[in-house]
């Protein structure tokens, strides 16, 4: 029996008040606690993120006691619980202690928001890296590996160095760590929604500004306040996760496994508990659920919200970005299916299984999830090239996916088109449009700038990865994959290397990478997630004292010497 509308509204209002009260209480407590001598918003944000890790660690410890035996490699419960609790307590003590010395600034400027984003994500990475070290998931000396694992967790990238006993076996982790990594990817996604609403609009691009040309304004705000928008999107995200979890469970995945996999599917993170990813289950139903979950994760959340809220599925079709997203998926799937012939063990060329495996690979890559139903390396080379391009493109804007985003691709295409027309009509004045909305010149230059920065970043990163033990294809594809938060790379793994399980998906190559490579990859993942522009602005703020010293200090290049002025 459904409650009557008035009652429903009353209940919703009560819930809203409850949430607001809780948030205010937390905010007030924070302000009362952080009243130290050092006035720095940045430090407060970083320390709060650190402190927030403690309850997550505790929850994962509890999970380990309850269900650890079902998912962990050793089959015992509680192997990770104590280290996790100790690490959580230590981090919380450290963070709260330092927080006592800090205080909020009165005013927060835009650029501080960006720096806070960078510092906050580094704090989260630090906390999770500590967990990896404390539980022995990575050797205690392998700091760079721990950093890369933590960055992959926070940014939702499926790249891991954790070995497994054999192909088809569970990753060599306890239940607590598996839960922490899955939860980390999910919370990273949730935090990204906050970033989407709070931070990216400051950059003028990549935030909620575009919903693919459906409307000029509506998607920018789903509610009068930003907090309301945030709440609605988080609710949608959570609902999607539950839906996928239920789907997995119905498709025959064990309950705890389906919970963990739902967390990494909806967040387009991609961590699995098995060495051969989702291919382990070898079940068509599970793969279909995953395809749905990943594809939904790559769709713009505001668009999805409005379409659901207003019961208007045609909204999807009206969105230029959504149309291109679907077109890309369909086109790539057909191409991959045709180019990968049946000698790769995918079943008959025109069979449903062949189609499903191709679709799975395409959706997994374009939504930047990185699950593998079959290793990407088993595809034909042309299909691998297609997948690499899809990695670069990524999902829709304001979605959980990483990558360059489909809407930016659309914008760039029309920008190039305009330049071509301008080559013929030199004095052409033309505004770029996306459906009903006009794209401002500022937005275009931001998009171009972001692409150029990413391109300028990719090359040195690939060179560093190449210097750290990967081959050329591996280095380039891993750089692209890490920057877009996908994870797997297209590298042939030398099975003789120590630590390589034969054909452990497409992340087996990571066993060959040394610390330089892990450091580079971790940084790439973080940069890709935060958007390179944001990171560069944060860096320029942080480096401002140095820049000022160079510009105004004694290192300044003198153009006019005092002698020449007479």
């Amino acid at each position, binding site marked *: 029996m459904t409650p009557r509308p008035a009652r429903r509204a009353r209940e919703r209002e009560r819930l809203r008040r409850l949430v607001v009260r809780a948030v205010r209480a937390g905010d007030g407590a924070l302000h009362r606690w952080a009243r130290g001598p050092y006035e720095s918003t940045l430090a407060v944000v970083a320390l709060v993120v650190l402190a927030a890790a403690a309850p997550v660690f505790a929850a994962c410890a509890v999970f380990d006691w309850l269900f650890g035996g079902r998912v962990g490699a050793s089959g015992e419960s509680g192997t990770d619980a104590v280290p996790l609790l100790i690490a959580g307590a230590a981090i919380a003590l450290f963070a709260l202690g330092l927080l006592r010395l800090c205080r909020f600034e009165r005013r927060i400027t835009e650029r501080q928001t960006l720096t806070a984003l960078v510092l906050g994500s580094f704090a989260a990475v630090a906390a999770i890296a500590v967990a990896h070290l404390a539980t022995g998931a990575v050797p205690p000396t392998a700091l760079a590996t721990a950093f890369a694992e933590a960055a992959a967790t926070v940014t939702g990238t499926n790249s891991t160095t954790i070995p497994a006993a054999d192909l088809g076996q569970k990753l060599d982790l306890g239940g607590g760590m598996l839960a922490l990594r899955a939860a980390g990817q999910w919370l990273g996604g949730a935090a990204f929604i906050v970033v989407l609403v709070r931070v990216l609009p400051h950059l003028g691009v990549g935030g909620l500004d575009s919903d693919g040309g459906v409307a000029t304004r509506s998607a920018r705000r789903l509610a009068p306040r930003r907090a309301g928008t945030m709440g609605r999107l988080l609710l949608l995200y959570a609902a999607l996760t539950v839906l996928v979890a239920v789907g997995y469970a119905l498709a025959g995945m064990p309950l705890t496994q389906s919970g963990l996999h739902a967390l990494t599917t909806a967040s387009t993170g991609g961590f699995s508990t098995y060495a051969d990813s989702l291919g382990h289950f070898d079940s068509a139903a599970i793969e279909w659920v995953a395809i749905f979950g990943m594809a939904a994760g790559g769709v713009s959340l505001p668009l999805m919200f409005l379409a659901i809220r207003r019961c208007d599925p045609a909204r999807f079709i009206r969105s230029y970005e959504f149309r291109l997203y679907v077109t890309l998926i369909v086109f790539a799937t057909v191409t991959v299916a045709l180019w990968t012939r049946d000698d790769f063990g995918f079943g008959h060329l025109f069979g449903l299984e062949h189609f499903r495996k191709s679709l799975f690979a395409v959706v997994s890559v374009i939504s930047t999830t990185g699950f593998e139903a079959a290793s990407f390396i088993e595809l034909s080379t042309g299909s691998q090239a297609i997948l690499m391009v899809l990695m670069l493109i990524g999902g829709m804007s304001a979605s959980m996916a990483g990558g360059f985003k489909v809407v930016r691709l659309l914008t760039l295409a029309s920008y190039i088109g305009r330049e*071509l027309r301008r080559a013929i009509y030199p004095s052409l004045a033309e505004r770029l449009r996306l459906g009903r909305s006009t794209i401002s010149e500022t937005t275009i230059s931001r998009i171009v700038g972001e692409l150029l920065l990413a391109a300028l970043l990719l090359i040195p990163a690939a060179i560093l990865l190449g210097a750290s033990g990967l081959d*050329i*294809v591996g*280095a380039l594809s891993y750089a692209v994959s890490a920057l877009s938060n996908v994870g797997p790379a297209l590298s042939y793994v030398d099975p003789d290397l120590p630590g390589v399980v034969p054909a452990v998906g497409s992340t087996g190559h990571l066993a060959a990478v040394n610390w330089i490579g892990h450091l580079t990859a971790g940084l790439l993942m973080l940069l890709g997630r935060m958007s390179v522009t944001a990171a560069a602005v944060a860096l*320029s703020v942080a480096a401002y004292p140095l820049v000022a010293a160079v510009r105004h200090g004694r290192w300044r290049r003198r153009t006019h010497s005092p002698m020449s002025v007479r």
Partner: protein
Amino acid sequence: MSTMASLGERRFESTPVHVSGVALLLVAAGMAVSAGVALVDGGGGALALGTSAAITASVGSAMMGSTTASDRSDSPLAFAAVAWAWLAVSIAGTMPYLFSGVIGWSEADNALFESVSGFTCTGATILADIDGVAHGILFFRSMTQWFGGMGLIVLAVSVLPALKVGGLELIANEAPGPTADRFTPRIAATARRLWMLYSGFTVAVALALLAAGTSLFDAVAHAFTTVATGGFSTHSASIAYFDSVAVELVVIVGMIMCGASFSIHWHTIMRTRSKLRGYSELRWYLSLIGGAAIALLVLNSGKLDLGQNIREAAFYAASLGSNTGYGLTDYTHSQFWTPSAQLVLLTLFLVGGMTGSTAGGMKVLRLQIVARYAVREVIRARHRRAVLPMRIGDTTVAEDVAARALGFVLLYLGLALAGGVLMTALGNDLETGFSGAVSAIGTVGPALGEAGPTSSALAFERASRPVMMVLMLFGRLEVFPTMLMFVAAMRAGTRSRYGRQAAQRGPRRLTRRETHASTRGLKRQRAGE
């Protein structure tokens, strides 16, 4: 119209056909010279070259004679003229290979590949055994690159100003780089000086090579391809054949010189400008090559001994930094070169030489614009209302120039990516396919993977080579003309009703009287207000 009346015969007005005819005539002259070389050498091929010259000349003169160049000179027309001329020349260039039997008739696509690779100064060769080919043909092969380096139309304008195929648009679209720098007010004079400088460099490099101990034939052929930054050699082993540090030094200096802007050379030689506009780009160009050489030294330090390492690093940084593509040893062998060193080379493929040089790639100036633009966007993200003019060196780059350069870079990268996907889809492995596409659009020649500097382009699958040909033409003509050649021809070439209307609508140079009238109109308008 006036030209038609004065000649007293019916001619079609079609700039693309006319310009193609002129270009064909020039190539025919080159073939004739090569036939002469073949006769002197006695190694055969003279008949093939002579026949090709005769056919090319007759087709060329027919095309030239039956048409006139349009009085108008706008960019669509220039695009069409340049692109069609290059296509015609590339097809004509297949004849010597086919007639002499160097490449069989069943492999006509290979002949086209060799010809396109020659005229676009790419240097990817289809010939597996170059040393066995007749000297006359090899001379012609090097000469195609020499023609392509500075551009046939520039040559046409310089030697035959009376042909009236000129117009800055035409030259600007053929000469590499976003801007055409005129040294003199007259375009024909500028073109003539460019070719004088170019020929001077060729002679200098040839003499230096001769002094370094090569044979006369090798000296001239390598001078042609060094100055054009093309990369065809007369030996399968490329420069490694000579195994001489002196030859390598000459070639390195030649490649670096010709990868730099010719207008800088001109101004330096003439001492016309003390503070050169191009200096900032030159600084970037040289530091890019120097930086690449140092990076190669460091990255390969564990694998090669020091002397060999220095030799190879310097050579490959210069050869690929100027997108020439000469080879020394095979850098694709992983026991000698590390993967990251090869990735450094891939970066050089992409960037290429300076604007106004004979080099390929997307040009250092555009890289500068890209870097400036990216940095400016970061600053703008911080300071929203900042108005930041884009400075390169001492000059400010206008926004529309920057926008066009960015459009070019995006298109270039997109084409390289799309080409790479196609190449891999057509059967190459990922490394060979993608690097082959980058190398082709950058008109470099050698690639990574299976197609290293010592292996021929046969390493690429046959089906994928047409993709490379298209990319080479895109790369040499700087994307826009090739992309717009059909549009432009449709708009400007025909005399159909549509064409006439379009021509009336399109930008057109005003006659003096019209200019006067419009100014008067404006003045009257202003007075009325």
